[in-house]
């Protein structure tokens, strides 16, 4: 702690070294992601930005139509390789959770068993039609009236069309099934294919069926995730794998502007990795109020560290657990108090010091948590307040246009500033959760400096929003400067943290590797 300066000077040169290392390292990590992602359908459109920062990942947002056409493209491609109809190929692909390579390999080795397990059994090429069978009794409803329309999949299990329809409707509507609906026969695992469905199912269910099918495509693919924003129908593609989540925080942005973590689909939580974030949220949920209360209202027994609330009475405490007798005021041994009961003025005595030491130690972890939690919560709260303030300002933006004669485009700096504030506060918030789980070393000093710089920049900008609208026009240039400074500080902080995360230089006091 005393040698702050040494650490700083030592690190700043080291820091430059890392600048060089970072580029090559960044490249290799990128390659690794690419190798893991041999998905031709999507990776073509991948844009690799030239000056990519360490905290940025490649991603792309897809509309429902995009997702559909990607599916179709892959089906066509594989269908040509396997020599199967596109219906059968679609079933096979869904059956193997869209793992194209595995499907082709397995199919080449033993086509019959692959078809069988996917519910496609021995082929008897015929276009699906319903038909009337003489002397037929439906095994579901026991109806046997002559002229009953019936249907069977290629397995030959025949039922009346009404029963088939009701069966499919229930699967699609009530159970949300699509890709893996089986023949209604007990023990028959043949999958109802898209053509049969088309033939039997009512139009309004068909669209639902399509939605469900598309959904399974995204759900099955490791490199696709639904945007978690309410009512957003887009999916985002990103090559970061679960096992990489200890080394990178993959924040992606959907076409709807929502920024979320591809690893855990929570809102953007850079710079903190997914696992600490999860633990932090859990801890906050469980502990925060309790910890605050404990901190304000209790002390620990100097001997056994049990938490004690003094709810009245004198200063002569007897720990209920270990029977240790001490003074609530000075935390010293009660036996040394002599006759000066009820009036402790023995602050400097040895036993009191020891007592307070023990107290301080057990308090430390609690206070440490509260230190980070309060700052975390503060930024969360401030982000909300900033937003409120901005909403008020927005209404005044119209006024500003009138009073200062500025055009709509010229008052947009307020919008830009507000968005920068939101993003920076989001980052700041998570720097505290990150720091809570961080073990101290000389890099944490740099981290904290970055944190402090960003915090100051943010507070300076935030302050400007409180100015009366009339003054805002004159402050435009200043505000734009402060906005870009905020963004710059944020990039510096995130880049530094992400670099060290990639190289595994941060030491955490929790496990950060997924599935470890």
């Amino acid at each position, binding site marked *: 702690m005393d040698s702050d300066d040494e650490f700083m000077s030592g690190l700043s040169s080291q820091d430059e070294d890392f600048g060089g290392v970072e580029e090559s390292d960044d490249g290799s990590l990128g390659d690794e992601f690419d190798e893991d992602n041999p998905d031709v359908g999507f990776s073509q459109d991948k844009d690799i930005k030239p000056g990519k920062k360490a905290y940025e990942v490649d991603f792309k947002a897809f509309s429902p139509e995009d997702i559909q056409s990607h599916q179709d493209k892959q089906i066509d491609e594989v269908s040509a390789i396997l020599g199967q109809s596109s219906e059968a190929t679609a079933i096979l692909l869904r059956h193997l959770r869209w793992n194209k390579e595995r499907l082709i390999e397995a199919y080449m080795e033993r086509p019959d068993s692959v078809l069988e397990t996917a519910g496609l059994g021995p082929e008897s090429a015929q276009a699906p039609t319903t038909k009337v069978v003489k002397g037929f009794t439906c095994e579901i409803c*026991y*109806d046997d009236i002559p002229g009953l329309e019936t249907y069977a999949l290629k397995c030959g299990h025949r039922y009346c069309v009404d029963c088939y329809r009701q069966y499919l409707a229930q699967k699609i509507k009530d159970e949300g099934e699509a890709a893996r609906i*089986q023949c209604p*026969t007990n023990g028959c695992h043949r999958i109802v294919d898209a053509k049969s469905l088309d033939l039997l199912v009512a139009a309004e269910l068909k669209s639902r069926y399509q939605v469900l099918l598309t959904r399974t495509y995204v759900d099955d693919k490791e490199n696709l995730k639904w945007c978690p924003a309410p009512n957003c129908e887009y999916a985002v593609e990103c090559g970061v794998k679960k096992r990489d989540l200890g080394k990178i925080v993959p924040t992606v942005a959907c076409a709807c502007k929502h920024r979320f973590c591809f690893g855990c689909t929570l809102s953007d939580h850079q710079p903190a990795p997914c696992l600490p974030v999860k633990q932090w949220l859990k801890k906050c949920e469980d502990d925060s109020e309790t910890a605050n209360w404990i901190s304000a209202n209790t002390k620990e027994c100097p001997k056994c560290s049990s938490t004690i609330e003094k709810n009245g009475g004198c200063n002569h405490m007897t720990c209920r657990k270990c029977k240790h007798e001490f003074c609530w005021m000075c935390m010293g041994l009660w036996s040394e108090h002599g006759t000066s009961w009820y009036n402790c003025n023995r602050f400097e005595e040895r036993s009191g010091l020891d007592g307070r030491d023990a107290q301080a130690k057990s308090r430390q972890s609690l206070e440490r948590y509260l230190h980070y939690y309060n700052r975390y919560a503060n930024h969360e709260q401030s982000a909300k307040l900033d937003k409120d303030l901005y909403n008020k300002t927005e209404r005044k933006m119209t006024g500003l246009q009138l009073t200062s004669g500025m055009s709509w485009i010229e008052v947009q700096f307020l919008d830009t500033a507000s968005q920068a504030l939101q993003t920076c506060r989001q980052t700041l918030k998570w720097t505290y959760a990150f720091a809570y789980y961080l073990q101290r070393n000389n890099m944490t000093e740099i981290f904290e400096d970055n944190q402090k710089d960003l915090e100051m920049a943010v507070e300076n900008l935030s302050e400007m929003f409180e100015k009366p609208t009339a003054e805002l026009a004159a402050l435009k240039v200043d505000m734009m400067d402060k906005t870009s400074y905020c963004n710059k500080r944020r990039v510096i902080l995130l880049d530094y943290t992400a670099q060290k995360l990639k190289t595994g230089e941060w030491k955490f006091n929790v496990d950060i590797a997924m599935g470890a």
Partner: protein
Amino acid sequence: MAQKRIVKEYSELQKKPLDGMRISLPSEADMHQWQILIDGPKGSPYEGGVFTLHLSLPTEYPFKPPTLSFKTKIYHPNVTNDDKGSMCLGMLRADEWKPSSKIDAVLSFAKALLLEPQPDDAVEGGIAREYKENKKEFIKNAKAWTKQYAKK
């Protein structure tokens, strides 16, 4: 549609009853609620007892599975040890049920379960553990319960 099938299944089971089972309708007006009496199968710890079961057919039957429950208390890993006596495994689960499955299969399934419990799909973890680790104790308890609750 369901009515026709239920009536037919019921009359077929009356014509050709399953071994050791008697089926009746508690209310003639309601074909959806059946009562079944099962004799504890020979060679099982339930031998000598008679168990009352309740079979309820949902309005969506046969597209949704029937629910089967023990009205007589029974010491069994797959039957809840409460006043419901419910079971939820195999073909009784909505995702495994197929509309072509018949009630006689459901009842045969229940009987087979008395002969051979499925501890890996248990609703009563404690009984399942005992069944797997201390069969002797399980048999003793199951017999005692049969004697106490399922006496003819």
